[in-house]
């Protein structure tokens, strides 16, 4: 029982990382209806930015918020400059755009900040929480920030005019344009928000996995899986999906003899695909009804 609890808590801590990434993935998916492969690399770049600011002597929180704001601006700029021209191209052309962006950012990180791993500070400390060995303060802080972000996003999308306009622009661009919503800018805003959330995710993950150009690769994979498991149309579902992936992965490694440890990623993915068999639009996603 103690082992089970311990593994679930460890899974939750990993899951917080995946949940944050999943949230950013779903955000951008809702704004642009595409999956952004470069999401992880954008987050890594933001984390490097914050690291550089801290190295230049800025206090943690100043660096944190500067990085978030710069990431937001960069996200908007990337949409305006790179993806707006591809708007009318075939759908998969923008996929190449994402892969290109991935490649550029990844290689740029390595060029600017080289490939040696760097430690990244945490504002929460790493003492065990409440004296128990199950979870430390940084992990708890990470879970807290995820939940807080989710709540803020919920309020933004449900309770503000801008949030409503963004949802409308994503759900039905033509009708949204007819009622006077500037759809192009809503998309750009979605990119900016996703980049900002990605920046937060990157800076919270960096103390755990250490900062290096490829740090988000694994996290993005699991985050993507979590987002799909929870349902791409539901931010809350994506967060739960992220936590679930973390827990499944840990439990598989512990409890499935012989194959568990080597194949834990494979097992997690099999579980997810199995869930998708039963609920093809994810656990909390709504499946679209198509008009003929």
């Amino acid at each position, binding site marked *: 029982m103690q082992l089970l609890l311990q593994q679930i808590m460890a899974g939750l801590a990993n899951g917080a990382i995946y949940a944050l990434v999943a949230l950013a993935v779903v955000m951008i998916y809702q704004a642009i209806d595409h*999956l952004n492969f470069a999401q992880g690399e954008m987050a890594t770049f933001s984390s490097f930015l914050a690291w550089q600011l801290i190295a230049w002597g800025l206090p943690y929180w100043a660096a944190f918020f500067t990085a978030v704001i710069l990431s937001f601006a960069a996200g908007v700029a990337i949409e305006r400059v790179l993806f707006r021209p591809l708007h009318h191209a075939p759908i998969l*052309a923008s*996929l190449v*755009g994402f892969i290109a962006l991935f490649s550029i950012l990844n290689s740029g990180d*390595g060029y600017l900040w080289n490939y040696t791993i760097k430690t990244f500070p945490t504002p929460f400390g790493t003492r065990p929480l409440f004296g128990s060995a199950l979870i430390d303060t940084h992990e708890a802080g990470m879970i807290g920030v995820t939940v807080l972000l989710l709540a803020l996003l919920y309020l933004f999308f449900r309770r503000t005019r801008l949030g409503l306009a963004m949802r409308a622009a994503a759900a039905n661009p033509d009708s949204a344009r007819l009622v006077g919503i500037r759809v192009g800018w809503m998309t750009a805003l979605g990119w900016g928000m996703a980049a900002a959330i990605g920046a937060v995710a990157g800076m919270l993950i960096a103390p755990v996995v250490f900062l290096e150009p490829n740090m988000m690769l694994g996290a993005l994979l699991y985050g993507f899986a979590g987002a799909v498991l929870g349902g791409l149309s539901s931010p809350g579902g994506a967060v739960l999906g992220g936590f679930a992936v973390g827990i499944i992965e840990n439990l598989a490694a512990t409890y499935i003899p012989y*194959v568990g440890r080597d194949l834990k990623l494979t097992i997690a993915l*099999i579980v997810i695909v199995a869930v998708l068999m039963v609920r093809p639009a994810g656990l909390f996603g709504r499946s679209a009804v*198509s008009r003929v």
Partner: protein
Amino acid sequence: MTTQPQEAVPLAPAQTRGGPAAWPALRHWVMIGAIAIALVLPFVFHGFVVFQLTLVMIYGLAILGLNLLTGFNGQFSLGHGAFYGLGAYVTAILMQRWGVAYYWTLPAAGGVCFLVGFLFGLPALRLQGLYLALATFALAVALPQLLKFHGLEHWTGGVQGIVVDQPDPPSFLPIDADQWLYYFTLAVVLILFAGAANLVRSRTGRAIMAIRDHPIAASAMGINAPLYKTLTFGVSALYTGIAGALGAIAVQFVAPDSFNFLLSISFLVGLIIGGMGSLPGCLFGGLFVLYVPNIAESVSRGLAGAVYGVIMLLVIFVMPSGAAGFTRLVIARLSRSRNRQPPA
């Protein structure tokens, strides 16, 4: 996922749209010319370049497999690197562990991949768009782990992989091993491309494309969508698997980490840049996937990835519907300006 039905449409640069009447004849001449050039190339270039050209054809074949599934049937796959790897391993194991001749391993690799692809196509029936992308992505991520798994090490060689012997050319031909492999690959690729061309022009091919263009209308017309979709998955995996088998023979080595998900992604890049739903476009995609990273490397070693990304962006900005769409556009423009000239 509200835009699902629309998503299928832009995938579809219809193969049959064609140009003016003069185009089919021209197409035949272009094809004959291309084959003639392909036959001469190994004598113009030597050694490493011949090997690279062999790889271009192999990648082109793998991209053709993906194209059958994504370009013609509208099913999205981020996992074709797994079928490529599976084909490669089947060949490597048959050749090195059981001493099977290399040419017999191709049908075996194709068969195994067809079966796996067909079986994977069954659950894939329930998934659409990005959800299907994740399921196939899972395949691509899982394969290297499975290949490294210590329970299978006896066959797969674990992390070490398997070294494959290079086949000797038949003794009556005055060519070296690289050239022989080039011609062998060329023959296999030509046969499989001809097969694919026939497939997409047949009744079955039209059914496959109808499912892509409008799944609901297609099933209303009596097309057995689940059957065609799973079969397309199988055939697609077969093509990519045979490409993987050829790849194992050409590279003479298989190891788990050469078949990671980045391979699947580069197939996808090759497909999009070559052109969805175009057969010659696949070879262009192969060319791009093989040579452009090398070019990027030679421009700047430290920023190779960034240069590759910038080239990708430039290409997609200039030709948003791939090389095939671009060629089609150019030909349409040319013939239109020719038709506009007053008759003399």
